[in-house]
């Protein structure tokens, strides 16, 4: 499976993290759109169509969990693979994210390769995009 020209949305309030994730994804051929906050993500999502969403969990105002819930209930992205980035030790938040419908999680700090591998995994055809969602999980394709 080639990942070239797949569009991904990256949401993180830390400029360094954003740059890091963007660099990793772009190096693998993704077309990356970056959002600085949950708000920006809300602005961007309705009018666009992404193949993958990567979001930090711990953000002020609209946190990543709310974003996951929003995405899974939205029209155009309810079946989009979604990776949440959580902090080491913040297990509860991570679990919540999975229950709300994230496809997979990554714990900070992580290597770019780990992110790319996970991205490929969740975007693979037939992958379960919300394996731990509390309501019945939609299957991709």
């Amino acid at each position, binding site marked *: 499976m080639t990942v070239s020209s797949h569009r991904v949305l990256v949401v993180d309030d830390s400029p*360094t993290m954003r740059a890091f994730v963007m660099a990793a994804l772009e190096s693998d051929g993704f077309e990356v759109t970056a959002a600085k906050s949950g708000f920006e993500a809300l602005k961007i999502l*309705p009018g666009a169509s992404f193949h993958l969403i990567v979001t930090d969990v711990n953000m002020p105002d609209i*946190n990543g969990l709310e974003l996951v819930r929003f995405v899974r209930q939205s029209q155009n992205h309810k079946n989009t693979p979604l990776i949440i980035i959580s*902090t080491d030790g913040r*297990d509860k938040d991570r*679990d919540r994210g999975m229950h709300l419908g994230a496809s997979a999680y990554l714990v900070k700090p992580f290597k770019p390769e780990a992110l790319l591998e996970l991205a490929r995994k969740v975007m693979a055809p037939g992958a379960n995009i919300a394996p731990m969602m*509390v309501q019945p999980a939609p299957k991709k394709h």
Partner: protein
Amino acid sequence: MAEQGSDKVRDEFLSESQEIVEQLNRDLLAIAQASQTRDPGGEGMRVDPDLINSAFRAVHSLKGLAGLSGVEQMMHLSHHLENLLDSLRLGKVPLTPAALDLLFEAIEHYQLISAEVAEHGLHAANGPSALIDDFVTRVNEAAAASGVLVKPTSAQVQKKAQAPVPEPTYGDFELDAGMVSALTEYEEHRLRENIRTGRNLYRIIGSFPLLSIDVELENLKGNLKPVGEVIAIIPGTGTSDPERIDLEVILGSSHSAQAITGAIGSSSARVIPVPRQKAANLPPSQVEHTGQISIGHKPSHATGPGVHSHSSHPHRDGTSHPGPGPVSASMAGGAHPSSPGHAPAPAGPSGPGGGDGDNDRGDAAQTLKSVSQTVRVDIRKLDVLMNIVGELALTRSGIQVVHDELRRDRVRAELARALQDELRALSRKLDDLQAGILSVRMVPLSQVFDKLSRVVRRMSREAVGKEIMFVVSGGDTKLDKLIVEELSDPLMHLIRNAIDHGIEPQQTRLSRGKPAAGTVAITAEQRGNHVVIEVEDDGNGIDTQALVARAIAKGQISEDQARDMTRHEMYELMFLPGLSTRAVADETSGRGVGMDVVRTNIARMAGMIEIDSEPGHGTRMIITLPITLAIIQALVIRSAGRTYAIPLNSVMESLMLDYSQIRTIERREVITLRDQTLPLVRLDDIFGLQRPVDMPMPTRGYVVVVALAQHRLGLLVDDLLGQQDIVIKSLGKTLQGIPGIAGATELGGQQTALVLDVRAVAEEAMPRITEAA
């Protein structure tokens, strides 16, 4: 070059980390201040949870930044600090003065690491550091104070991940389970805290245009802050309009729905109180896997839940609870329901004064927030802009010249008038532009005062037997950013002196009839073109005898000289290198940095420092600094073939002179001006310049009259070339400080002229004159 690349990464790391550490410092200072005014003594301090959360986020960001940049020590430090801060914000650990001190100490460790990185590169701060390890141990001890830090094993993690999250209950509030499930642990904690302290919950639902959502939400939050706590913001999902989005804000507040509606003003959002269940009998608290407890009501109290709408404060001593019995206590290791009347020390920060507490916090938080709405600008870019403005001023002058020509031509007079109008408008706009750029470079002194506050805190604790009160005022006085940065070392030194040598031990003070706590005050004030900063203490005053004795001992003055010295001259001795009133420079006194260096540093900024002292009463150090030089008007003159610019505000008048009018009185040249004798001075003599050989001696010239205190002096020059706007530029680090020269300026046409320091020139000339008088 690879070098340049890694330098760039390092610089970016340094600038971003510095910004975050400064923010952290501000948060800690605000926390310290809030804790002082609210809850002196006692185990836990009550502080705005937003502040602690902000500190947590700052450390979290530093951890991420350090991780990405490969600065291991900072990662290590931040990782453990983050745990402590997380426990603090979740209420698992009380915020004690000791904990706060640890946090302040952390800032210094961050600074040390940054300094290492700045000097030796990103990898300089890798590998183990005994200092940091020691600090981290103490941090972990503090975090473990309530036995909290128990990390689950991977088996536990697996199990948790597979089981669905149990639905916690929230008092008797009916909260949508779906909404609650999207809260982070922290938000949940805030929710429970609000419930515990007896507040109501409200949902504020509004529809916002997508394009301006961030601005509108900031407004809404700002309006809500005085009336309650914003716990979470939840995006709605059922919107049909692609241009708009529904948002729901969960608010905890002691105010009524009407008050809240009033607070948000014109916003179209609706305020809906979260309904409560009527039934008083609720199942006992459920225990979640980390042992946290949610609140249940003991049904036995006569006063029902209705009482909660008004601020009924849970008292710290646990007596007279009109409302709920058990108070939530977040502890690990199992449920621990507390019996009524026994309130464990409130672990979380919450104000007993619901209403006004919110207001205070609201204002404070609001000002903190607006401080962070800044743009980082490379100060060199500002220099470029200043240059351009300077050149624009020159162009304006050039256009003025053209106008003057035009005006002479009667035919063009009309045109000339129109041109003059435009020129005036241009001048005004140039002034505005220049002021605007200058204001960007100006930063408030509070930047350096905040740093000093931290140091003083530490020092005053280390100074055994002394109690120090530190007073700061005028922090909003602004100076050029570079000057403010240069000030931190000298000011630090002065304050150290005040604390070490100035303020006496408590006993001594009391025996002298002074208050036990010594005061060290730093004040700043703008006076005209200068800023005056004073560091004052009410301690010993300067021991002139000891100072003089030391100076004699070091051979810097003779006994005879000492006898004739005025008190002020004795104070000046402090600026001689190597003179310190203590034989040994102790740890806190700085490492052999003396007052001579302080004076040099301040002189480098074109400033001055003076000392005033009263034995037994105290000492005052007065620093005077110029605000950045701006565009000024100057008189351009020519003397012995060289061109100079004289700032117009130093000039009283200028007149033409036939040299036959010069008389000589006791070898000094003078003229008579309006019946008074005006001494004359030739620039060439002052500067020791040779007249070019082919230049004939003039028979006429001009006199530029300047004043020094009550004396007047005439500078004799060959020619007056006119008046124009100039920008004074420094001659650069190496050449600055030449007596008599304030700087240089470009006068159009690639000509560079020196700008005279009239005061210095006059001072030099004066002795010669007053000698003769």
